[in-house]
C-alpha cells in the first residue's frame, strides 16, 4: 500500500487519540480534590472570599466543568493551552521553551540504549552460556530493578564527585563563552550522565531481547542457507542474523518511548535538566493545572509521533510489512 496513504490514516487516528487524551486529562484533573483558586491566593499571600471569587472569575473556574472543558478544547485546537497560574506565562510558550532539552535527552538515552544493548546482545548470543551472556542477564536484572533516581545518584557520586569528569547538574555552563562548537560540546558533556541514567535500564532490556531473538534466528533455516553458501561467522552474526533481529528491537523501541518519556521526569529532576520533566515536577507541586495539562498533552503528542516514526521505520526494516499493506 502507498506509504503516504498509510501515513494519512495513522495521522487521523493520532488526531482522534490526542483529542481523547485532552478530554480525559482535563476531566481527571478536575475530579481531583483541591481548588486552584486557593493555591493562587496562597501564592499571593492569603486572600478574602471576594478575592477568591475574583480569581475564579478571572480563570473561568466558576463555570460548570463541562463548559470549562468546551472552552479549553476550543482554545487548545487553536494552539492556546491557557495561562500558567504559577509562571504567569502562556503554557504553550513555557512548554516550547522546555521541549527541546527533553527530546534531546530522550533520544540520546534511547539511541544509546539501543546501540549498546544490541551490541551486548549480539555478543552474548555468540556464546549463549558464556560469561558475557551471564553478565548481560545479571545486568538486565539489576538495571531493571534499580530505581532510576538511585542509578542517577550513584552515577553522580561516582562520575561527578569521586572521579569528577562530568558536571553534576544543568545543561550548560553559563560562565562558558567559547563559540557555537564549544557550546555544543558543553551540552554533550552535560548530557552524558542523565542520558546514561535514563538509558541504563533499557540497555539491559535491549541486550536481553537481542540475545533471545539472535539465538532464535541463528537456529533458523535461512542462516543454515547462508552458512551453506560460504558466509563466515562474523557476517552471519552481524549481517544475516542481526538484520532480522532489528525487527523486534524497532517494535519494542516504539512501545517503550512512552515509558522513557515518563522516566525523563525523574532524571531531569535529579540532574536539574531544564526540560519538560522539571517543568512537570514544579507545576505539579504548584498545582498549576494548565501547565500540567499542557505537559500531559505534549507528552502524548511526543509518544504518538514516536509511534508514527516507528511505524515508518518498521516498514523499512521488514519487507514483509512493506508490501503486505
Amino acid at each position, binding site marked *: 500500500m502507498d506509504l503516504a496513504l498509510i501515513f494519512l490514516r495513522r495521522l487521523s487516528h493520532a488526531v482522534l487519540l490526542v483529542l481523547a487524551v485532552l478530554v480525559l486529562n482535563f476531566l481527571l484533573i478536575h475530579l481531583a480534590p483541591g481548588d486552584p483558586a486557593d493555591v493562587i491566593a496562597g501564592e499571593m499571600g492569603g486572600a478574602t472570599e471576594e478575592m477568591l471569587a475574583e480569581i475564579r472569575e478571572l480563570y473561568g473556574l466558576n463555570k460548570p466543568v463541562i463548559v470549562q472543558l468546551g472552552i479549553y478544547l476550543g482554545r487548545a485546537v487553536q494552539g492556546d493551552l491557557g495561562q500558567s497560574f504559577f509562571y504567569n506565562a502562556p503554557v504553550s510558550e513555557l512548554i516550547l521553551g522546555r521541549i527541546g532539552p527533553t527530546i534531546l535527552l530522550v533520544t540520546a538515552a534511547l539511541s544509546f540504549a539501543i546501540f549498546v544493548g544490541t551490541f551486548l546482545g549480539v555478543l552474548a548470543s555468540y556464546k549463549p552460556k558464556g560469561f558475557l551472556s551471564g553478565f548481560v542477564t545479571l545486568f538486565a536484572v539489576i538495571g531493571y530493578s534499580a530505581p532510576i533516581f538511585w542509578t542517577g545518584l550513584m552515577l553522580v557520586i561516582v562520575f561527578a564527585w569521586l572521579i569528577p569528569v562530568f558536571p553534576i547538574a544543568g545543561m550548560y555552563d553559563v560562565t562558558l563563552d567559547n563559540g557555537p562548537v564549544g557550546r555544543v560540546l558543553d551540552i554533550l558533556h552535560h548530557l552524558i550522565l542523565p542520558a546514561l541514567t535514563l538509558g541504563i535500564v533499557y540497555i539491559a532490556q535491549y541486550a536481553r531481547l537481542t540475545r533471545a531473538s539472535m539465538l532464535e534466528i541463528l537456529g*533458523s*533455516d*535461512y542462516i*543454515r*542457507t*547462508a*552458512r*551453506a*553458501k*560460504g*558466509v*563466515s*561467522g562474523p557476517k552471519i552474526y552481524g549481517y*544475516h542474523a542481526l*538484520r*532480522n533481529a532489528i*525487527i523486534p528491537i524497532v517494535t519494542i523501541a516504539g512501545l517503550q518511548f512512552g515509558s522513557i518519556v515518563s522516566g525523563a521526569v525523574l532524571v531531569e529532576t535529579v540532574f536539574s535538566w531544564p526540560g519538560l520533566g522539571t517543568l512537570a515536577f514544579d507545576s505539579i507541586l504548584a498545582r498549576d493545572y494548565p501547565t500540567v495539562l499542557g505537559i500531559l498533552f505534549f507528552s502524548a503528542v511526543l509518544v504518538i509521533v514516536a509511534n508514527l516514526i516507528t511505524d515508518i521505520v518498521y516498514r523499512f*526494516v*521488514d*519487507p*514483509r510489512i512493506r*508490501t*503486505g499493506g
Partner: protein
Amino acid sequence: MAPLLSVKNLLVEFKTRAGIAKVLNNVSLDVHSGEILGVVGESGCGKSMTALSIMGLVPSPPGNVAGGTIELNGEDLLSASNKRLHQMRGKEISMIFQEPMTSLNPVFKVGHQIAEAILLHEKTTKSLAWERSVKMLDRVGIPEAAIRANSYPHEMSGGMRQRVMIAIALACNPKLLIADEPTTALDVTVQAQIFDLLRELQRETGTAIIMITHDMGAISELADRVAVMYAGHIIETGDTKDILSKPQHPYTRGLIACVPHLEENPSEERPYLAEIPGVVPPLTDLGKGCTFAPRCDFRTDDCTGSQPSLSKISDQHSVSCFNLNTVAS
C-alpha cells in the same frame, strides 16, 4: 577414476536426554564427477545428517562427527580449517534444502541473496554479480528474471523459492550439489518441474548431485546409482536399475513394494498401498544386531548377534544382509 567425493566409515553422534544417539554408523559412499547418486530411506534414517556432515554443518552441540573421513578431490574436509571450509561451501559443494519456505532470508531481495554467493567466492563487482544473479534466475526458469530479482522471498511461491535456492547453489558452478528432499514441501506438479530442472542443469554443467528423496519415481528417472539407508546405516547400494529391478536387502524390497501403484489387479503380495510393519529402533539403543532385524521377515539367529557389513555381491552392487540366499528365493 578416483571419486569426486569419498565418505568412509562416518560416525555421527548426538547427545540427547535419552543418551548418545548414533545417528550415522559407518556410513561410506562415493560420488563420481558428473553422476547423480540417489539416497533413499525412511524419515529419521540419517539422510540429512549425511548431507550436513559433508557440508561441515552438523549442529554442534548437540551433534558431533565422532569418526570417519570425508574427502573431496582427495582433500580431507573433516580436518580442513574453517577458512578453507568457508571457501569451499557454495563454491565447490553446495546444498539445497527441504524447506524452501524458510530457507531464504526474509529481509533480503532474492537477487541480492544470489549475488552474495557470487561476491563471496569470486573477484567481481556488485553490478556484475547482480547481472549474473539475474541470469541465474532466468536459467532456473523464473520469468521476468530482471524484475523478479528485486522481489523478496515472501512475494514468491514455494516452487519459485526452491528455484531461487537452486540458483544460489549453482551460482558458482560447484562440483557437487547436495539436494536434500528438494521437492518434499512442494505440490506434485511443481515437484516434477523441479526434478526436470535439476536434471537439465546437471546435464549442462556436469555437476555431480547427491539427490536425497523419498520419491522412488524420481530416483528411477534421475539417479545413476542409489544408496539405501536404514537407522544410520547404508544397507544397500548399487546401480539404479539393479536396485530397482533386483533389490537384495529385505528393507529395500519393502521400500520398493511400498511405492503406491495402480495396477489392474492388486494381490496379497502387491496391494495398492503396502507398508513395512514396525518402526525404526531408537538410535540411542541400537543393540549389537542388525538394526533391521526386529522388522525383518527373514530374521535368523545370526541377525541378532552383529550388524552385517556392507559386502559386494557384484562389481557395483553391495548389500549388508546375512541371509541373501533365503531372501532371494
